[in-house]
C-alpha cells in the first residue's frame, strides 16, 4: 500500500514549523501537507506522526478516514461524480460511465499522465442541481453525459471566485 516513497520532506518540515506539536494540530497539518504534495506521501505521514507525537497508527486512521485525504498520488484535476440519491435518480450513473469511458480509470484511480483522478462521492449537497459532477473546483449542475468530454477539456478552475 506504500507508494512513491521516498519523497522530499522539506515542505512538510516548513508546514510542521507553523503548528504546535500536539495531537490537536493533526488534521490541519495533514490538510496543508495534502495541499502541498497533492497527496499524503507515506514518508511525510511518518514524519508528521513523529513530530506531533501521535502514534503512526492514529495518523493512518485519520488519513484513511477522510475522503479529503489520499495516500496515493492524485491527478492535477480531481473529478468527483455525485452518487447521492437525487443525482442517482437524475442520471448520475450515466456520468460515471462516461467518465470511465473517456479516462479508462477505475474509481479512486488516476490516469497514467497524472492529469485526472476519478472519485465518486456519496453526496455533495447540491441536490437541486442534480445530477452534479465536480471537475477540480468547478461544479457542473444538470450535467449530461454528452457534455462530460467538454467539462474535462474546460478543466477545473473555479470562475465563481
Amino acid at each position, binding site marked *: 500500500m506504500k507508494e512513491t516513497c521516498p519523497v522530499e520532506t522539506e515542505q512538510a518540515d516548513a508546514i510542521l514549523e507553523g503548528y504546535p506539536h500536539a495531537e490537536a494540530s493533526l488534521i490541519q497539518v495533514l490538510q496543508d501537507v495534502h495541499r502541498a504534495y497533492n497527496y499524503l506521501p507515506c514518508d511525510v505521514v511518518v514524519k508528521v506522526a513523529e513530530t506531533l507525537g501521535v*502514534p503512526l*497508527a492514529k495518523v*493512518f486512521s485519520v488519513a484513511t*478516514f477522510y475522503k479529503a485525504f489520499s495516500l496515493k498520488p492524485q491527478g492535477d484535476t480531481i473529478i468527483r461524480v455525485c452518487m447521492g440519491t437525487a443525482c442517482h435518480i437524475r442520471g448520475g450513473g450515466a456520468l460515471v460511465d462516461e467518465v470511465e469511458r473517456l479516462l479508462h480509470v477505475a474509481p479512486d484511480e488516476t490516469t497514467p499522465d497524472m492529469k485526472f483522478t476519478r472519485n465518486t462521492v456519496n453526496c455533495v449537497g447540491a441536490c437541486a442541481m442534480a445530477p452534479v459532477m465536480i471537475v477540480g473546483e468547478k461544479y457542473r449542475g444538470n450535467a449530461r453525459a454528452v457534455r462530460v468530454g467538454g467539462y474535462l477539456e474546460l478543466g477545473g478552475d473555479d470562475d465563481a471566485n
Partner: protein
Amino acid sequence: MPTLTINGKKVQSREGAYVLEAARQAGVEIPTLCHFEGLEPWGGCRLCQVQITKDGWDGWKKMVVGCMFPVEEGLIVLTETDEVRETRRVVLDLLLARCPDTPLIRTMAKEYGVERTSYVSNPEPTDCILCSLCTRVCDHIGVSAISTADRGAGKEIAPPFHEPPAACIGCLACAEICPTDFIPYTTSHTTRSIWGREFEMLRCEDCGRAHITKAQAEHHAANRAETTDVPQEWFRYCDSCKRKQQASRFPAVPQLV
C-alpha cells in the same frame, strides 16, 4: 451512593458508575460485545441498550446505551422489555449479516430468535465485528500499533499502511481480547508472529518455558515500570513458576490464629 431500580429491584450503586456496571452488580444480565472492564466504555456494539425512565416521566421511556449511561438517584432501568429485546435483536441481525459464520455471533443471535439474518449476508464473511477492543487495548498499553482504517463499509482493523507495525511488541493483547478470535497469530517456545512481525521469546529462568516476548519486556522497562510499580525482575519467571515460588514461601509466613 445513588439508589436506582433495575427491573423492579432496588440497587445501590457506586457514584460515577454506569448502568451496565450497576446492573451486573445486581445480577442482571446484559449482553455486551465491545465492553471490557479494564477499558473505558465505548458504546460501539449497541447490545447493552436498556430503557430508562423516572417517576414523573408519565411512563415515558428512553433507550440508552447501558455501558455509557451514568447512574443517578431515582433512575428506573428496564433491561428485558419487548422494545429492548427487539432493539438487541436488530443489532444481532445486522451483526449476523456481517459475520454469518462467526460462532459467537450465531449463538447470541439465536438467543434473540435470529437463526438467519434478514439482511443481505456479507459476500465476504469476516469474524471482525469492529468492536475496537483490540485497538483500544493496544492504546491502553501505550503501544498503538494498530488502528481502524477507512470507514463505512470498508472499515477494518489494520496496522499503518497495512505493513508489519514497527510499534508492535507482540504481547497478544489484541488477539486475546478479541471476542471472536479474529486476529491470527502463532506462538512457540522460540518465536511468536502476529501482524506480520516475528518476535523473539523470553524464557522463564526456572522452567525454560517461553512466556513473553523480549520486545514486551523492553517496552515495560522503558514505559511502564515506573507507573505500574512492577519491576523488570517480574519477567524472569513465568506465571506458574512465580506461583510455585510464592507457595514455597507460605510455610514461613506466621499464622494468624
